[in-house]
């Protein structure tokens, strides 16, 4: 079926370099001797470790539970022994360590209990929880927890569900191979997302340089009798950006300030859909992913790799050529140089490219901006990158926000076309992080200011209260002095009842009267305190009250050994 496609402005056409890695089918990467599974592999909260060093784990066993709603669980990629839970270098440009579970595989690769489920028989909320607990996140590289994207906006129905198989980054072919080889399961997974969002139409967008994937997906859709549309979209980077693909397929433009569901559309990567299907229909959580290993290697290929596999083990499979100088994670447009091959494969690792000086030549020296506007022509979000650059350079961050810096998706098109070879994206990242850190500072300062003001107010209040108390006391004293003879009489008769000891020695002793009044005041104050302060034992359930009663009884028994029988009876009764 021919459907009208929309165009997004800008974009570039770098050499795709995809052919080498699609020659062989997806290979199963062997188990490494150690797995380093980072607990934090998605956007949002960092999962809490659930295992102890020395513990035996099974394949697919939960080892890190989702921390809060925006988080995703982490599982053991194979069966084996937990050696440690320690900091290990992260798959991140900084190379900083992150808390990871180190597992020594036992080689048996023995699954934990798997529970296949049919999402149609479950409540939507339950399906979202299951996806979160299966660690399903966006595998396009953003690793956003999928369940958090699966709620339609309150007022807008989801018109289109876009499945992203565009894969516009050069070199990368993991989604291509997935669609070729596992089209049926991918298409089956779409139903989960469609039903949760109650989406009216499903559009599967694939760049037209992947005819095999388009054909495979079309065949799978036909075979399963679904009404999804598989659409070949023109090959132009970044057609696989969620917002660009949504624009191309639906004509809708999602600004940075809005969620796509507010416009009645949502987008998921095809690999995410596949893992969601495995998670529900087979009870298999996300413990591996397909990674393209390509570039300056003898054997470029896609591998299904266990999460936590050290990158060193992965790249060895491709046999890097002698002049390999570095490795990229992700594509050459948006990826980053891997600082340390000890870092593991994580859910975000879609592609590893071996680089050489001839494959990725060093960037020529940066020249001044000549305002040629090539970047503005290439920007898919129709920003004015050179203006942002001037403002970022001048640290005029207010202006960068006025010129919409947070609409920048850091796709790198501007840097790609810049005749002055200015690393524009770096300037924008710098500006964004400066703005974020300033906002954090401001928040901290505001909180400190509020604390300070609160403290001042309290001090002031206490001072006035003290002054009032003193004034009251002063008036009370004068009144007392006036009524002293009467009070002495009263002290002789009334408090005598409560404080007999004091009275017995000398009924008219002034000293004794004073002492008696102090004791009375303390008693009054105690009674008052008890009346005002709610006791934490007030709002308890019946069971808790019983328990407390039992404890009190035990205490009483300990304090009074004469009544042990009572205590035992209370305990057995409780």
């Amino acid at each position, binding site marked *: 079926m021919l459907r009208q496609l929309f165009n997004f402005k800008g974009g570039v056409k770098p050499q795709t370099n995809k052919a080498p890695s699609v020659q062989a089918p997806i290979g199963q990467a062997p188990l490494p001797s150690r797995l380093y599974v980072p607990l934090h592999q998605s956007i949002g909260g960092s999962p809490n470790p659930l295992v102890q060093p020395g513990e035996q784990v099974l394949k697919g066993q939960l080892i890190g539970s989702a921390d809060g709603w925006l988080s995703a669980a982490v599982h053991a990629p194979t069966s084996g022994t937990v050696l440690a839970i320690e900091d290990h270098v992260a798959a991140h440009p900084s190379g900083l360590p992150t808390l990871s579970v180190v597992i020594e595989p036992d080689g048996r690769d023995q699954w934990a209990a798997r529970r296949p489920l049919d999402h149609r028989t479950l409540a939507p909320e339950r399906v979202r929880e299951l996806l979160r607990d299966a660690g399903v996140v966006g595998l396009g590289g953003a690793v956003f927890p999928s369940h958090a994207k699966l709620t339609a906006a309150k007022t807008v129905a989801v018109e289109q569900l876009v499945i992203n198989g565009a894969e516009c980054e050069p070199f990368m072919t993991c989604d291509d191979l997935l669609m070729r080889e596992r089209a049926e399961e991918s298409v089956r997974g779409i139903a989960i997302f469609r039903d949760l969002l109650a989406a009216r139409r499903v559009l599967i967008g694939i760049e037209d340089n992947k005819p095999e994937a388009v054909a495979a997906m079309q065949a799978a859709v036909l075979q399963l009798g679904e009404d999804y549309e598989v659409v070949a979209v023109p090959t132009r980077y970044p057609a696989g950006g969620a917002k660009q693909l949504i624009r191309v397929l639906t004509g809708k433009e999602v600004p940075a300030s809005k969620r796509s569901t507010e416009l009645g559309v949502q987008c998921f990567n095809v690999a995410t859909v596949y893992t969601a299907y495995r998670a529900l229909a087979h009870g298999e959580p996300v413990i591996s992913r397909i990674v393209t290993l390509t570039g300056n290697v003898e054997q470029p290929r896609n591998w299904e790799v266990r999460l936590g596999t050290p990158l060193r083990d992965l790249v060895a499979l491709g046999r890097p050529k002698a002049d390999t*100088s570095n490795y990229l994670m992700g594509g050459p447009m948006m*990826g980053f140089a891997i600082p340390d091959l000890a870092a593991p494969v994580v859910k975000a690792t879609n592609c590893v490219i071996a680089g050489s000086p001839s494959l990725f030549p060093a960037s*020529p020296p940066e020249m001044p901006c000549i305002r040629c506007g090539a970047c503005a022509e290439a920007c898919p979000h129709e920003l004015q990158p050179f203006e942002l650059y001037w403002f970022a350079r001048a640290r005029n961050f207010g202006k960068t926000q006025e010129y919409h810096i947070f609409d920048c998706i850091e796709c790198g098109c501007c840097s790609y076309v810049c005749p002055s070879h200015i690393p524009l994206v770096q300037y924008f990242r710098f500006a964004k992080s400066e703005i974020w850190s300033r906002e954090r500072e401001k928040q901290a300062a505001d909180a400190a200011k509020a604390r300070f003001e609160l403290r001042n107010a309290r001090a002031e209040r206490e001072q006035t209260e003290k002054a009032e108390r003193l004034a009251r006391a002063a008036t009370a004293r004068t009144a007392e002095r006036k009524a002293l003879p009467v009070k002495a009489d009263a002290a002789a008769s009334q408090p005598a009842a409560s404080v007999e000891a004091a009275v017995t020695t000398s009924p008219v002793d002034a000293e004794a009267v004073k002492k008696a009044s102090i004791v009375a005041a303390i008693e009054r104050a105690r009674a008052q305190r008890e009346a005002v302060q709610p006791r934490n034992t007030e709002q308890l359930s019946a069971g808790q009250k019983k328990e407390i009663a039992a404890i009190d009884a035990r205490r009483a028994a300990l304090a009074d050994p004469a009544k042990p029988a009572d205590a035992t009876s209370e305990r057995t009764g409780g």
Partner: protein
Amino acid sequence: MDFSTPPYVLGETSVRRVMLQVLLGLLPGIAAYVWLVGASIVLQLAMATLAALTGEALMLWLRGRPLRLFLSDGSAIVTAWLIALTFPPLAPWWLIVVGTLCAIVVAKHLYGGLGQNPFNPAMIAFAVCIVSFPALMSQWPVLGLKLSLDEQFKLIAGLAPRIDVMSGATPLDALKTALKLGEGSVDVPTLLATQDVFGNFAGRGWEWVSSGYLLGGLWLWQRKIISWHAPLGFLGGLSLLAAALWMWSPQQFASPLFHLFSGGSLLGAFFIVTDPVSGCTTTRGKLIFGFSVGVLAYTIRVFGGYPDGVAFAVLLLNLCVPLIDMYTQPPIFGMKNEP
């Protein structure tokens, strides 16, 4: 390692590549120019280039910038060629040297070098020289004047007296002067038909130089070195005003075609108002910028005291660029329906 920031692949482009293509775009016009006036223009181009590179090197050295990187970017040569093509071809050597140094030292480097100049350096050179040396800047060779290479060289070097016979005027100037002298008694069509200085549709010979610029400009547009907005705005502004006045009084005003192919119109349209550094950057801004330059250039060349108005029009509009850019920012992706 300088391998740490994405993107790791870059397009095949550089400032040098852009500037070289601009120079290539000038070649058809230069070829026509050589055919028209002889080798003197080549000499002027060479002198301007030499002066520009010397001035550039000196300023780079004073500013502590890398010499090789910036000398090879080609931007100074573009400025030099534009200056040579706007100055009279037989002007004395020092005139073009003064103009070029003014452009490179003052208009470019004193404002911060490549990419920082608010004014078009070539137009600064033209403006400074026509204000300072109006007589020399108005001496254009009479067409048909056959001077040997040696004679041309001597004239430029100041070794020969500047004979009156070579002190012609541009077609635009000739038209204006004739109209002024005639006090309205002569009419333009007969003037154009009778005077030797006018050709088929503009100045004799000059119309082909202009056509050369048009050809080169269209090539640059096709190569996506320049966008169509500023040139179209400029030519539109110029010809709209010209057409309005011409239709109102064809006796007094020349046709839009004459204006399009005379003076600096086409050089300005494709090589001056398209200067990215000193021009507008938004598409609407480019249209407004070009249109305003066109209207102003026509006004100055027809009603003002100078033979052509492109230079002053461009400089005046350079001043307005930040304002125009600020008010013509296009809406971004997803915000087109926002107020």
